[in-house]
């Protein structure tokens, strides 16, 4: 039994370990603290890729924490979809961290950096755990860790807006986790199990006896994950939280944190709940209509924003709607599209927030109106912004088009072209609010008025990587799509 058997636990252990090490390291050996975090993230990423290879070779496998098999111990499960999720989380967070190292220097007080790294590692660790765990109560604990550390990386920047936003986020998060725990209690009441697979086995019999319990549990899960993932109309906390946070935190929150809950909802619907439940209760209907409303309203709200980061935050509400739409459409192609969008949006939205971060770093501007002519002074940043926006709209050659293609194809497959129309209308709305920014940035004749600080290379390289990623996943989407389609086989 080699060390690779323990990789699922090791990934989380490394990240949590770094979370504890970061503050003392920062205190006494400052120059090692950032490299330690980067190394830890890179190491876990390598292990995650190795896990994917293991799954591809030998199919899904489980890992029992401390050697205790379920129903007593916590079980981790690795299959294609979870490995995919894990890699997305780790890769994107590594990428954001490289950018963050420089950006944070001006956004935070110097002595808080160690704590930021700690919270960051905790956040990534909890998300990695949520991608892997196969136990409802473990998921609850990880959700709480995730909520605290996510609020932490917002409120660490001590200004009025951040504090208020993170409190709002915390309270609604607590409501979300409370609902989740109540839902788990409902399931536990009728099945006596907490392990996903065991619950799944016990549920069909339990549904016969206690149909109302299941109804309550599924409603609570939708409310809970909906709140956490900003599914319309439970999104109220998101715009403030994502807009006021330091830019790397915004990138992290918009790019990954809301996605992991969409993934969790997917797991609940397709792994924990038996198929018969989804067919008897129109859960999917609820999800897709809420998602559609989110797609439309997110875009409409984004159009009227004056603050760049707030606009990006509202845009996230629309974009997470695509992921939920894919999940709710209950069709292999659509779900593939949804999960592909999860990846693409993680890259492009993080990149857009990074661009906003660079603009704030270099010029201090947050208002969209003042961005006229900025393309001349910050060309790389604005090109990255252009490519990110193009992907949001779904211009050919970018990843956004591929995910929309799959979502639309899925919607047509089950005979509901109305959702294609919704996707297209929202793309148009995206164009309406992204295009003027780009046009003004490049086409303004008068000179850019504000002072411009030179942007360090360490902030620009991640942007270039992001651009490459968006275009790469727009052109060479085959491997990921194939992987996702294979991953879906065990769920549908």
């Amino acid at each position, binding site marked *: 039994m080699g060390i690779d058997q323990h990789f699922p636990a090791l990934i989380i252990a490394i990240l949590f370990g770094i979370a504890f090490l970061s503050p003392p390291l920062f205190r006494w050996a400052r120059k090692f603290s950032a490299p330690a975090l980067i190394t830890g993230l890179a190491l876990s990423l390598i292990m995650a890729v190795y896990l994917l290879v293991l799954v591809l070779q030998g199919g899904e496998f489980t890992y029992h924490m401390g050697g205790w098999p379920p129903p007593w111990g916590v079980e981790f499960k690795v299959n294609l979809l979870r490995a995919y999720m894990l890699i997305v989380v780790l890769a994107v967070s590594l990428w954001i961290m490289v950018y963050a190292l420089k950006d944070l220097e001006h956004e935070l007080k110097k002595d808080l950096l160690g704590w930021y790294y700690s919270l960051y590692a905790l956040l990534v660790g909890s998300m990695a755990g949520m991608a892997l765990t196969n136990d409802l109560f473990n998921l609850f604990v990880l959700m709480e860790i995730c909520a605290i550390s996510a609020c932490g990386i917002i409120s660490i920047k001590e200004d009025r807006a951040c504090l208020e936003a993170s409190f709002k986020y915390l309270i609604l998060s607590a409501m979300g986790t409370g609902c989740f725990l109540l839902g788990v209690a409902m399931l536990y009441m009728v099945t006596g199990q907490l392990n996903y697979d065991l619950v799944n086995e016990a549920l069909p019999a339990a549904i016969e006896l206690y149909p109302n319990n299941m109804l309550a549990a599924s409603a609570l899960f939708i409310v809970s994950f909906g709140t956490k993932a900003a599914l319309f109309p439970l999104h109220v906390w998101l715009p403030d939280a994502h807009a006021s946070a330091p830019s790397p935190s915004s990138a992290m929150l918009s790019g990954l944190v809301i996605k992991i809950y969409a993934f969790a909802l997917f797991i609940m619907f397709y792994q924990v709940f038996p198929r018969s439940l989804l067919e008897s209760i129109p859960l999917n209907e609820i999800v897709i209509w809420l998602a559609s409303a989110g797609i439309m309203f997110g875009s409409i709200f984004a159009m009227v924003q004056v603050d760049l980061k707030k606009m990006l935050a509202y845009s996230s509400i629309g974009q997470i709607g695509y992921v939920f739409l894919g999940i709710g459409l209950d069709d292999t192609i659509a779900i593939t599209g949804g999960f592909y969008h999860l990846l693409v949006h993680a890259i492009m939205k993080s990149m857009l927030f990074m661009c906003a971060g660079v603009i704030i770093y270099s010029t201090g501007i947050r208002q969209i109106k003042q961005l006229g002519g900025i393309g001349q002074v910050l060309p790389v940043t604005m090109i990255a912004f252009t490519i990110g926006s193009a992907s949001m709209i779904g211009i050919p050659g970018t990843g956004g*088009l591929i995910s929309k*293609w799959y979502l639309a*194809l899925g919607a047509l497959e089950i005979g509901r072209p109305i959702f294609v129309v919704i996707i297209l209308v929202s793309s*148009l709305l995206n164009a309406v609010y992204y*295009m003027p920014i780009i*046009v003004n940035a490049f*086409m303004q004749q008068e000179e850019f008025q504000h002072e411009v600080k030179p942007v360090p290379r360490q902030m620009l390289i991640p942007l270039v990587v992001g651009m490459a990623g968006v275009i790469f996943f727009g052109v060479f989407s085959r491997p990921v799509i194939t992987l996702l389609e294979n991953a879906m086989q065990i769920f549908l």
Partner: protein
Amino acid sequence: MDETTAIAVILFIILFPIIMTPIVMSMGGKSEKLRNALAMATSAVTFLMVFSLYPVVVRGDVIQHTFFEILPNLEISIRLDILSFCLTAVASFVWFLCTVYSLDYMAEEHGGSRYYAVLVFTLGSCLGIFLAGDFFTLFVFFELMSLISYILVVHEETEQALKAGYKYLIMTIIGGLALFFGIIITFELGGTVSLGVGAIIKEGTLLALLAFICFLVGFGMKAGMFPLHVWLPDAHPVAPSPASALLSGIMLKTGAYGLFRVVFHAFSIEVIQTSNWDIILGVLAVITILLGSAVALTQDDIKRRLAYSSVGQMGYVLLGLSVLNENALTGTMFHIFSHAIMKSCLFLAAGAIIWKTGKRQISDMGGVGRKMPYTMVCFSIAALAMIGIPPLNGFLSKWTLGLGALDANLTIYALVLLISSLLNALYYLPIIVPAFFEMVGENEHSFALRSNIQDVTPRMLAPLVILALCTIVFGLSPINVLFDLSRWTSLFFLEGGFM
């Protein structure tokens, strides 16, 4: 020329201008002369390479080649058949002339490097549209061209240009999304979007109708079809004149080309006719023709008048597509050629006048013909061709279209053609007649009074003269290559040889 060489040539035609773009862009900083020469050489080489494909096409060969699959059954592929060749040829030809014309026209303008780079890039993507082997590739190039040509539209960067450009951008994106929807439905119904299959959708179901409408919106938007023409009269006039010539002369045709492909490849004549969708197309075409011509009458800005005229002229192309018989399709194809030549000539001539005199209003142009005789003669020839005066090519296309309409027992369409010719005469003659015959002293703005205006340089004049000669040659000459090509295209499609 064997198939492998032909594929290599096609690839070269598409990629060469695109690869040249950054080179042209970066050259601008070092030497403007070299940059201009490079831009010109690019379009010239492309034009010559297109011509080398002529023997392949005349043999009646169809080249269809797939490079790689982006997604299962969704590939990047190229295709060369007679229709592609016709459009590629006329596009690269006009492009070359416009680039030559730009040399002097753009000499004192700002942002020359950007202009030439975009010009060259748009050439590549435009040819990519014509040579695409499936609807998805076509869509990719279509979006590329539409979005990049935005930079041409707003080149002047005035308030007005930005406003028009924004309208253009939004309409382009609406069109692109509609196209995307149409392609997705086609893919869903037929499992492929390749042009090599022919008649992908075999039944006129509700979903198929939706696809048809989406295609109509997507391509019709580009072609300036009513009611999606709103962006056109704003966007075309604000661009620099050579760019306007390309926008009106060539890029509008991508829409018509797309509809051609939709009618024959995504659907088939039977589906279109049994479901009566040709009537939708016909009615929209008639409205487009009459509306374009009627509104053109009221415009005083010369470039706006030309732009509205383009709307009307594209209506002819759509009309021919809705009739769907041999003569009508020949007329449509030939009108694509003629309109590309005539409208480029008109825009270039108008550009020359504006460049020299700074006047855009038609009412101020009395007597300009005496000061700039060559320019104005070219303008007049092209305008007469537009009206449809017999020996010119415009007459030939209208005549053939009219014959097609009569063959199909649609006398009303022939009547519409006549009325619109009359309207054309009504708005072109008031430009030409005062330009030559206005008496001295009749109007205080008259150009006859001013002495400091001379005709444009030979380099700008040459493209005008060549285009004007083309209108005469391809209307008059007994051996009319373009007309033959049009006839072949029409037969090629009607006899089902295109699969």
